[in-house]
């Protein structure tokens, strides 16, 4: 076996894996532009019919906008809470910081169904179910770990002497944070925000247990899948794929911009 053959074989293997990962998503696109009621392949005629239903039908467009609204609220809360606690864990040497970090990322490992069940039973007693506030805070629990992971990693890589220099030159702690630390963390915060938004926007399990009659987009899709196969689901799914592509793009651009800044700073000084 020459190395060249090995390299070609690995390349072919990689192509097959990417095909397996992507073809169901690519296959979705023609189906969503299908005219007929039945999702058969190949589509008999093309139309924007199901997109029209998605954006005009009250139950579909309502669910979509509600999911976006909840996602934005969750993102704002997660970025604020997550960045603050990352600072406490990495910069301020809080006693028990390791334990706090462990607790903060626990929702990434604990099965969603366990978190959902606990919330459901507790909030049923407290009569907190079917409330938008509860749903937003519940989503924040599973969204905030992403912000903490990304931002605390960036903080660890950030050179503390720059902040100290700002302090020595007379900036107060608040000014040096705003003018030095925060700009350097911006790419990480933006990437964390994207992760947090999709943790909320894509969530089904927690919503299924605590939302009651509040119908988010994933819940709307879920309820539909258990009844009949409405082709609007295909259009909704396509919109969700497109949104995650945009989110991934923003996070990647932020990340590579952050890397580039780090590199130029290193070469400059």
């Amino acid at each position: 076996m020459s190395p060249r053959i090995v390299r070609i074989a690995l390349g072919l293997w990689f192509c097959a894996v990417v095909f397996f990962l992507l073809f169901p998503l690519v296959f979705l696109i023609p189906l969503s532009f299908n005219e007929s009621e039945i999702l058969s392949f190949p589509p008999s005629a093309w139309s924007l019919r199901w997109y029209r239903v998605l954006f005009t039908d009250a139950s579909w467009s309502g669910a979509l906008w509600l999911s976006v609204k909840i996602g934005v609220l969750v993102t704002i809360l997660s970025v604020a809470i997550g960045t603050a606690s990352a600072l406490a864990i990495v910069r301020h040497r809080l006693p028990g910081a390791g334990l706090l970090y462990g607790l903060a990322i626990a929702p990434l490992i604990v099965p969603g169904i366990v978190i959902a069940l606990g919330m459901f039973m507790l909030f049923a007693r407290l009569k907190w179910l079917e409330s938008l506030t509860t749903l937003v805070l519940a989503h924040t629990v599973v969204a905030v770990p992403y912000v903490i992971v990304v931002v605390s990693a960036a903080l660890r890589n950030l050179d503390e002497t720059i902040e100290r220099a700002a302090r020595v030159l007379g900036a107060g702690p608040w000014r040096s944070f705003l003018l030095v630390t925060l700009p350097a963390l911006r790419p990480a915060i933006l990437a964390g925000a994207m992760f947090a938004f999709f943790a909320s926007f894509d969530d089904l399990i927690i919503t299924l247990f605590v939302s009651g009659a509040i119908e988010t987009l994933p819940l709307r899709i879920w309820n539909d899948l258990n009844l009949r196969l409405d082709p609007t689901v295909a259009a909704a799914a396509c919109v969700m794929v497109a949104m995650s592509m945009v989110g991934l793009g923003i996070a990647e651009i932020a990340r590579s911009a952050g890397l580039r800044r780090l590199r130029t700073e290193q070469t400059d000084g």
Partner: protein
Amino acid sequence: MLRKSMVAPLLAAPLLLLFAIFFVVPFIEIMRVSFAGKSGAWAGVSWLMSSPVFAVVFMNTLKLALSVTLICLVLGYPAACFIAGQPASRRGIYLALVLLPFWTSVLVRTYTWSLVLGREGLLNASLIWLGITSEPQRFLFTPLAVHLGMVQILLPVAILTLVGVMTELDAGLVRAARVLGASPWRAFWHVYLPMTKPGIVAAAMLLFILSLGFYITPALLGGPRHRTIANLIDLQVHQMNDWTAASAMALVLLATTIAAVALLRWLVPERNLYGGAR
């Protein structure tokens, strides 16, 4: 003026408050219902012991998690090798191809599989068009469907974790083995593979832990005959209204997860761990 020692606790306070009410207390509630619920202490445990369904579903969940983990590692390892072997400037493009499905909602990905595997789906249409079968075959609601769905969802996690470890390796060691006369196969088997072992173990445990809690994919692609623990918990809550049984099962699921995490932390140094988790 704020005292310096107060800054860190104040920064962490919102997180602690949120997690206390929305994470820790709900967990205590599960313990309370399962051990001190209306049906008396140990009612949850005795339900677990006496339920014939639980034992079967629990074993099925473990088996499913194990086989999905193994398939992901076998499929993912060569793909990760390929990405790690590319020059750093080109790696981003290949990683993006893996990241895109990774970023897409699990519900959407599962739904697309139900369209591919259904009676009128792409697979049946292709098989009939190719003349391999004349009648639509049943693919949906089989173990095959659940495996396909779960592997597609978890494979990116496997690849990203493995690439993270592989790109940190010292490629010079493999080159040294080759220069010293080892065949490519020997160099791979005795040098490269052992060096990637921490990554393999980390990926395996991560995949196993994540597979244990799967709910959407088994529900949509497996149907009632291929339930996991998560589906059974949902069934007990939403249809049987038996919160004690649901809580007891949640504790078993959690205990299994914690055991796997403990094993993982014991086997692998921390820095290799969360690199792949999104």
